[in-house]
């Protein structure tokens, strides 16, 4: 029986503008969106808006806010505001690179496993499961332990950590979509695998991928900060929120500001991505409503 391939279900293809409107109409989503936009702007514009060089030391050590330095100074007399802005740059760049790479690799692996199945599935899925069964931070620690601290190794470690969740999601959708009658008929009419993937499988995965992307960003920022705090992330003098906190803690008895500023930055940024992720989840996939992102 030869039939025309039925049109793809409209569920996944949504107008980006319409989605944006939905997010902004939701109060929580709007707050998340504003936070994300402001933090991104801060990161991008850091060189233009930072009042000082983030690595320039001065004699105004641990000065409280309100003087020359708007948010005070750290133990080396460096401007906390400028360091926080450059910290946003570090944190967001690393997280964005990590989640994008992990997303692309994870999607490809998930497609290979879920669409072609067979041997590929037999190899990819167990490896992903094992990676998944490692506690996230420990896996990242293992990679950094072997490769040594530093930005590139940090990125490598985090990419490895974030691949499995993407691969899982896409494999799941690919498996279920390829059983749908419209995909079977597409096969029957002789559509190439690539066309089927781009026309049917990927559009159906867009919603969960988008949600995963946003919540992963939040989580990546947290892990990046944790590794930075442990001294295993981006290395000084390049400012990162995590390492700022670790030196801030050492001088806590003298001034709280160096421990306050980066912590608040991390919290607000992660909160922004979490809020946005929650709203996206509700808007894109009502079935997932109420579930935790991790």
């Amino acid at each position, binding site marked *: 029986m030869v039939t025309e391939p039925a049109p793809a279900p409209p569920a996944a293809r949504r107008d980006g503008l319409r989605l944006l409107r939905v997010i902004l109409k939701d109060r929580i989503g709007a707050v998340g969106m504003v936070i994300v936009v402001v933090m991104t702007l801060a990161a991008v514009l850091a060189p233009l808006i930072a009042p000082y060089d983030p690595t320039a030391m001065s004699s105004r050590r641990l000065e409280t806010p309100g003087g020359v330095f708007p948010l005070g100074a750290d133990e080396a007399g460096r401007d906390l505001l400028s360091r926080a802005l450059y910290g946003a740059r570090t944190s967001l760049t690393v997280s964005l690179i990590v989640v994008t790479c992990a997303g692309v690799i994870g999607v490809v692996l998930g497609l290979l496993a879920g669409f072609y199945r067979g041997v590929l599935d037999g190899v990819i899925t*167990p*490896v992903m*499961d*094992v*990676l998944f*069964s*490692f*506690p*996230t*931070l*420990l896996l990242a*620690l*293992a*990679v*950094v*332990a*072997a*490769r*040594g601290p530093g930005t590139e190794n940090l990125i490598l470690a985090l990419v490895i950590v974030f691949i499995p969740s993407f691969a899982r999601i896409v494999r799941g959708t690919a498996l279920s979509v390829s059983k749908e009658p419209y995909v079977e008929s597409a096969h029957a009419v002789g559509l190439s695998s690539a066309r089927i993937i781009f026309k049917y499988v990927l559009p159906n995965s867009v919603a969960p991928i988008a949600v995963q992307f946003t919540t992963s960003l*939040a989580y990546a920022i*947290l892990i990046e*900060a*944790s590794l930075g*705090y*442990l*001294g*295993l992330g981006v290395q000084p003098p390049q400012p990162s929120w*995590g390492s700022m*906190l670790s030196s*801030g*803690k050492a001088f*806590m*008895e003298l001034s*709280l500001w160096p*421990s306050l500023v980066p*912590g608040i930055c*991390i*919290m*607000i940024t*992660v*909160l922004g991505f*979490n*809020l946005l992720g*929650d709203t996206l989840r509700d808007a894109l996939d009502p079935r997932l409503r*109420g*579930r*935790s*992102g*991790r």
Partner: protein
Amino acid sequence: MLRIMLIRLVSVVPVLLGISVISFFVIRMIPGDVISSIMGEDFADPQVEAEMRRYFGLDMPIHEQFLHWFGGLLQGDLGTSMRSGQPVLSEIADRFPATLLLAVSALVVSILISIPFGVVSATKRNGVLDAASRLISLVGLSLPNFWLGILLVYVFSVTLGWLPSQGSGDGGLADLRYLILPAVTLGASLAAISMRMTRSSMLEVLNQDYVRTARAKGLGEHVVVVRHALRNSLIPVVTVLGIQAGALLGGTVVVEQVFSWPGLGTMVIRGISQRDYPVVQGTLLFLAFFYVVVNLLVDLIYVYLDPRLRSGH
């Protein structure tokens, strides 16, 4: 039930095997190799180097190295610390109790916070308390646990002077006060996740027919919530506790560092900075194994708790 449990038990084997293989190869990701990384450039006496290579078995082909290492692993041999000369396993045994104590206390803190809040949040849905506890849990999810620890130290150690901020004391009962801040730090960040889970699973259960029946029977709201709804909603919460074991183990590493808690976390970080690869490899492997076993136990408890699974369907 037995069949499900057996299947679950067997399914752990490939995961443990996979973790072992990954742990083995992680050390092979070192640029150069272990020896050159430890000895550095300026120490390169070829004879000593060859000697060390033989001592650590690095002169063998890689599959033999793996078999050798894996054979040791099966006998509980995780290698020897390059710094202390002690077997890694005995160092782990020394420090694991502290980590376990911290993790279990954190879990208790997390349950004490999340279950009452989650239940109230669900039963008084969309009320002020619900909104407040949802906001708290979202903020908690976004808060790095080590920062929470730093803030707690500032308030309770630096400012008020009530609690110690570092170490674990000498092991006396009074030294439990050393445990309070780290356990609260770790527990609070876990509570954020399980609060959400308790709420949503409670909401789901409250809509079930048997809850309506219980209400229709004229049972008091309290009895309905505690006896009928809460008990059933705890099943998914148990699963979350299993998933949290991972966050817990990762979390201990960071939180131990904040409070200089003498557990496996501080040991791993010290191992990394000293390039003591057997210690790092052994500890991470141990923690990953522990995590898998905890999850296995959680699944078994789950089968036991859920009557539908207990009867074998």
